[in-house]
Each structure stands twice: as structure tokens, then as C-alpha cells.
């Protein structure tokens, strides 16, 4: 990239299982006004706004219409990415790189408590052939987990270890709501949702919002002593039908990571990346995604968790924030991965800070079984 885009500030609501006292415009207003306040900027400093939400989760056609006052887009330029938040970060960065705008306020929101996960996620499948099978995200991800475990010998205990690590990491992060000390045995006996996914292997219903300020290099340097640079960014969408893919090898993630590494000049991710924030909606996904992004060979991610390599104090901390398992809403989840990686690189991650982190990776996905994948490489400002 000839020009660079920097992240100068991030702000998150506290994530809760049910925010009964806040409507989603109120959540959007909270994070939009606070991120500006914390970075010492005004809404007038923002050339544009990118919002990120889903009509299906909001139960509203044109879900961004509702938040225009809350995010300050009245008589200004705004657009909405209706995918995972990582793709919204991608779009915000590209709108800045176009040269049309210098800065961007990005706001992502979702109140899962107001929707029906089964009905909404069933609607992502083909209306003729697949919906009647009762497919939803949980059921199809369970199929993916089974396929992955069968092909590579990954065990349910190894997946449970991911949950143990992330839920523990989450206790050091003030935002998520389901952080806890838990044992592998407790995860294993936490109640079967869809074999092999148990309750603590799966993300909880969560409400919340996340905002971020991005700017072109010159402005980013002016606005922040330590902006975080986006040095690699790429996305790929695999084919739609589950039967057309090998679910144990997510080709879209492999290609997106390769492209992002190439842009950032990363040749050996395991050596050159200091921390990873990835989208662990289910515990098996952390292992599968780590393999897809080349942090280990296929089938070897189980060993990584067993050896403590991905622990907070390990060689490659993965989800020091506690990840989505500790409680982030869908859609917002990918933006939170970027925000958390940025906080690490700014040295502002508090108790879950990874010391000396210089380069981080954030990953988001959406669609059936990680069909769409987005990988973002972030680097500490100098």
C-alpha cells in the first residue's frame, strides 16, 4: 500500500447478555461519542461514517437508517457494510485509501437478545434445498467441527482447552460478560448443543457496540502519538454449498491470509506475528483458523493449545481479550477483534496486555461455516 491507514482510537460498550436499558441507537451513540471524546476529536473531524449492522438482527429494514443521528451521519456521507465487522474495517480503510476521504468513524452494533438466532441463521441457507433441513449456524458448525476432528484427529478435549483459555483470558478484560475460571471437565459436561459442541464451546447471546476512528497517515500521526497501521488486509469468499467445500480446510481463509501476509511482508507468520485476535464463535474454530492462517501445519493446532503456545503468556498469544467465547455479539465480533488487536499494539490492553507486541493479526468471518473470511495485519506505530 502506497498510503497507510492508521487506527487512532477505539471504544467498546460493556458487553452484556441483555441490555434492556439501551436501544441500539443508544449503544451507537455511546461508542461514537466516547471514541471521539477519548481521542480529543469532534464529529466534524470525521469526513465520513461507515456503519456495520444487519437488518435481520435489528429486525429493521435499512438498519443504518435508525442510527444516523446517533453516529452523526445527518447530511454527511455514510454507508453500511452488512457483514462481519472485519469487512467493515476493510471498507472504511479502502474508502480512505481512495483519496476521497481522510478519516472515518466506524460503528458496529448488534443486540442479539432481540432476535431469534435459529430463525435468523436458518435464513442464510438456500430457501429451496437447505432451510427445510433445519440448518442454522450451530448445526452446520457442528458438522464442520466433526469433519475437522475426523480428518485430523483433533479431540473434544483440545477444543475444550480453547474455551478454558479464552474464558480465563476474558477475566482480565473489563468488557465481556461470560469470562470465568473453568476446567476442561466442566466444558465437557456443560451440556450438549449439537454434537460435538457443548454450551461452553459456543459463544453466548450478547448485546453491544464498538467504534473506531481510522485516518490517512498524515492525520493519524497528528491525532495520535501511537497510531496502529493497517499493513495487510484481504478477504475471500468460498463457494456457498457446504458439500462443495472440504470443511476441514477453509480455502478462503488460507487465500485471504496469504494475500494479507504478502501485503505486510510477512513470510513466517508464527515468527513474525506477536498476537492473534480471531473469531472463535465456537472453540474448534480457533484451532481450524490457526491452521488455515499458517500458524502450524494442518492438524497440529491441537498440539499448540496443549503446549500452551497460544496462552496469554505463551509464544503466540491467541485471543488475549477472551475472544467471542467470553461474549461479543455477532457482526460486532470482527470489529472487536481489530479493536482488541489495536489496543494491544497501542499498549492500552491493561491486564491482558501482551508485552512488547509489535505486530498483530485480526480475523473475522461470516456466512455458513466460515465461507467469507477477512484477515487484517496491524502494526505498532513508530
Amino acid at each position, binding site marked *: 500500500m502506497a498510503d497507510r491507514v492508521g487506527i487512532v482510537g477505539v471504544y467498546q460498550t460493556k458487553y452484556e447478555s441483555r441490555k434492556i436499558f439501551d436501544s441500539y441507537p443508544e449503544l451507537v451513540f455511546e461508542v461514537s461519542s466516547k471514541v471521539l471524546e477519548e481521542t480529543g476529536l469532534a464529529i466534524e473531524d470525521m469526513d465520513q461514517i461507515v456503519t456495520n449492522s444487519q437488518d*435481520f438482527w435489528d429486525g429493521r429494514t435499512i438498519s443504518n*437508517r435508525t442510527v444516523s443521528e446517533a453516529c452523526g451521519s445527518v447530511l454527511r*456521507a455514510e454507508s453500511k457494510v452488512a457483514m462481519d465487522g472485519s469487512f467493515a474495517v476493510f471498507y472504511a480503510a479502502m474508502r480512505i485509501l481512495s483519496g476521497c476521504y481522510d478519516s472515518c468513524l466506524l460503528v458496529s452494533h448488534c443486540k442479539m437478545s432481540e432476535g431469534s438466532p435459529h430463525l435468523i441463521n436458518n435464513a*442464510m441457507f438456500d430457501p429451496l434445498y437447505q432451510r427445510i433441513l433445519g440448518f442454522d449456524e450451530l448445526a452446520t458448525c457442528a458438522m464442520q467441527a466433526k469433519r475437522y476432528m475426523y480428518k485430523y484427529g483433533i479431540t473434544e478435549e483440545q477444543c475444550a482447552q480453547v474455551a478454558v483459555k479464552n474464558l480465563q483470558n476474558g477475566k482480565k478484560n473489563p468488557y465481556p460478560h461470560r469470562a470465568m475460571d473453568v476446567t476442561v471437565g466442566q466444558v465437557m459436561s456443560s451440556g450438549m448443543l449439537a454434537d460435538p459442541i457443548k454450551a461452553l464451546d459456543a459463544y453466548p447471546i450478547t448485546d453491544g457496540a464498538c467504534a473506531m476512528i481510522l485516518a490517512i497517515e498524515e492525520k493519524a500521526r497528528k491525532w495520535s502519538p501511537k497510531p496502529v497501521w493497517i499493513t495487510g488486509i484481504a478477504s*475471500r469468499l468460498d463457494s456457498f454449498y457446504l458439500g462443495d467445500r472440504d470443511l476441514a480446510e477453509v480455502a478462503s481463509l488460507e487465500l485471504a491470509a496469504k494475500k494479507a501476509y504478502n501485503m505486510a511482508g510477512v513470510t513466517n507468520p508464527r515468527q513474525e506475528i506477536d498476537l492473534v485476535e480471531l473469531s472463535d464463535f465456537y472453540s474448534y474454530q480457533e484451532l481450524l483458523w490457526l491452521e488455515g492462517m499458517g500458524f502450524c501445519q494442518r492438524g497440529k493446532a491441537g498440539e499448540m493449545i496443549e503446549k500452551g503456545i497460544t496462552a496469554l503468556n505463551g509464544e503466540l498469544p491467541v485471543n488475549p481479550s477472551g475472544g467471542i467465547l467470553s461474549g461479543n455479539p455477532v457482526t460486532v465480533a470482527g470489529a472487536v477483534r481489530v479493536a482488541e488487536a489495536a489496543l494491544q499494539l497501542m499498549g492500552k490492553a491493561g491486564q491482558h496486555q501482551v508485552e512488547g507486541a509489535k505486530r498483530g493479526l485480526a480475523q473475522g468471518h461470516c456466512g455458513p461455516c466460515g465461507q467469507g473470511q477477512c484477515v487484517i495485519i496491524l502494526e505498532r506505530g513508530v
Partner: protein
Amino acid sequence: MARRSKRNVAIVATGQTDHRSKRPDVNIVEMINEAVRRCLDDAHMTMEDIDGVVIGNMEHFEGIFFTEMWSVDGAGSFLKHGMKITTGGTTGSSLALAGYYHVASGLFDTVMTIGWEKQSEGETTAGLIFQADPLWERATMSGAIGSFAASATAYMHKYGITEEQAAKVAVKNRKNALNNPHAHLKLDLTVEQVLKSKMLAYPIKMLDMCPTSDGACAMIFASEEKAKKISQNPAWVIAGVTRHDQPFGGDLEMVANLRTLRSATEEAYKIAGIKEPLRDLDVAELYEPCTFAELSWYEAAGFCGPGEGGKLIDSGATYMDGELPVNPSGGVLSTNCIGATAMIRVAEAAIQVMGKGGKRQVPNVNRSLATGFGGSWWSDVMILSRTP
């Protein structure tokens, strides 16, 4: 304030389905595939040559979540970059702008944008009502017709615009559609027929209103280097602007002053160096959801002064042989597949610049304007040019 992109970007190809009220012969991805193939044929390209796809529609209309995922099969864009942008009625123009930003960023050289809607598979008015606040607004929300009836009444009252003047827009656009092979409603009408058509909500009659259509539109945006190889006469994007507004209807100024369009066109004209739009533009594709809106949009886009929209159509300036032909394609009054509608405006504006308009071609087009309308009276504007 937006600026022009650092890298030059051009539209090199367009493809549309032949829009109909119902397309029972195809499912959604098959319909998308038709537009994609026509677009690729227009560019003499294959999907191999495309770096990424941007797609959008109104998700609640057909009840499909993550349409960008299912449509990968329709576009044939396996393992390519993909993104979904949805902004209501402006979805199509938001997608076109996204295609522009994708290429302008330098991260992509060729990007396909796809807008589509299969309204026959859903319930449009129910889908539209769901945009209103469930506590404060939904009980009074009546879909598109009611809000246009309210604004048209106020527009007539404030400026003395007549139903006859509005009817002329219906006659003009449906007649233009006779020259457009893709248009849904192709009708040779008289003003009397429009005035006598069934009253929907005063003063909006059946023939004053846009139809509901099934259809898709695809476009290819390319960098300067690629564009010059692909097309001898691409349409260069020289300005793109978006304006959104308040969420609640009661806070909006709906009367003859679509302030988002006024603000967006003013900025776009500044970027493109346009001083007198009526003189400096050669053709305009306006997103006119009803006849009265086209007259009002003339004013907001600066083609005439406030309250002079009726006089402008009376003068004949916006007819095919006028000073600034508006909607040679037949406009939204002739075709309305919502997620594609605003993109069709941009595609038709590009077709005019590229000289590919066939029977609907306006001679010697150097600069064209396309607008998108939607959300809570939001506007997008793009200006295209024969030269970069």
C-alpha cells in the same frame, strides 16, 4: 467534503436482465447470473479477470440473510474478494460508489458490482414498513405510496405544481422506455390516461408510481490502465457523493427540497467543475420513485429554481430532444428492482457516456449525472465523463 479519487476509475461494462414483474423461470442466483454474464460479455471478459465482487439488495424483501454468500454461486466468484453493502433504496448507488472506492484504493484493479431484487418473491410494503421505529412510527407507516402522497400534496400546495405536470413525467419516461430493451413497463400513454388511472393515495395515481420488478444489474469498475485495455470509450467516474439524513419522518424536509440531493449535487458539481448543470450536463438518470419526485428532484439538483420543476417539464427541456434529457432509460417509473434500481441509474448514465444506448442514446454525451434515492430521504450522486 469528499474529493476526487487519487487514482482514475472508469466503468467499462454493464449488464442487465430484461426486467419483469415476475421471473418464475429463474431463482435468485440464476437471475444474478444473467446480469453477470451480460456484463462480462459487454467487456469481453471472464470472471477470471475480476478481482472482487460487491453485492447488495433489500434483505427483508426476499428474506435471505447473507445474500452475498449464496450469490457467490450466481456470480461465479469463487474464492474472490466479496462484500455486501446495503443502504435501502440507495443500495444500488452505494454499490456503484463501493466499486469506485475499491478500485480507487489501489487494492483492486477490476471490481464487479451487482444489485438485484426479486420482488415477486417477497412482500415489498411489509419489508418497507419494517424500516420504521417499532414504537413510534410503525403504526403510521404505509410503505412508499403514503409518504410520497404526503410530500406531493405539500409540494403542490407550496409551489402550485399540478397533477398534469406530474403526469407529463409518467408519459415521458414510459415513452422513453419503449427504446430500452431492458425496461419493465414500456407504455405509450397520454396525460389523460395518467390522470384517469386508479387513485392510490391523493394525488398519487397508479401511473404516477413506480412498479415492483424482478431484475439484476451488474457493472465493472476498472483502473485507468485496465480500463484503457478493456474499453475504447469507458465512462470515467469524476465525482461521487453521499448524503444521509434524520431517522424520523417528522424531522425531514420532504417538500420540494430534498436537502440531501441538493447538498450532494452541490458538492459533486464542485468536484466535477460543473457550474450550470442544465447546460454542463448532457444527460441525467434521476431516481424518481414517483412522477412528482422527478419534478422536485429537478429543483434539488439545480436544473431550475425552487418551485420551477413544473415549468421545466412544460418547457420540454428534459425530453429526449431537450436541453438535458432526463431518464432516457425510462427511469424508475419504468423499472424498479430495488437493490438494482439506483445501480441502473449509474449503469444507464455510463451507457450514455460510452455511446452504447442504441435507440435510447442521446447524441454527443460528454458528462452524465446519476442519482440514488432511499433510506429516510437519502441521496447518492455520481458524475461520469467521457474523459478522465
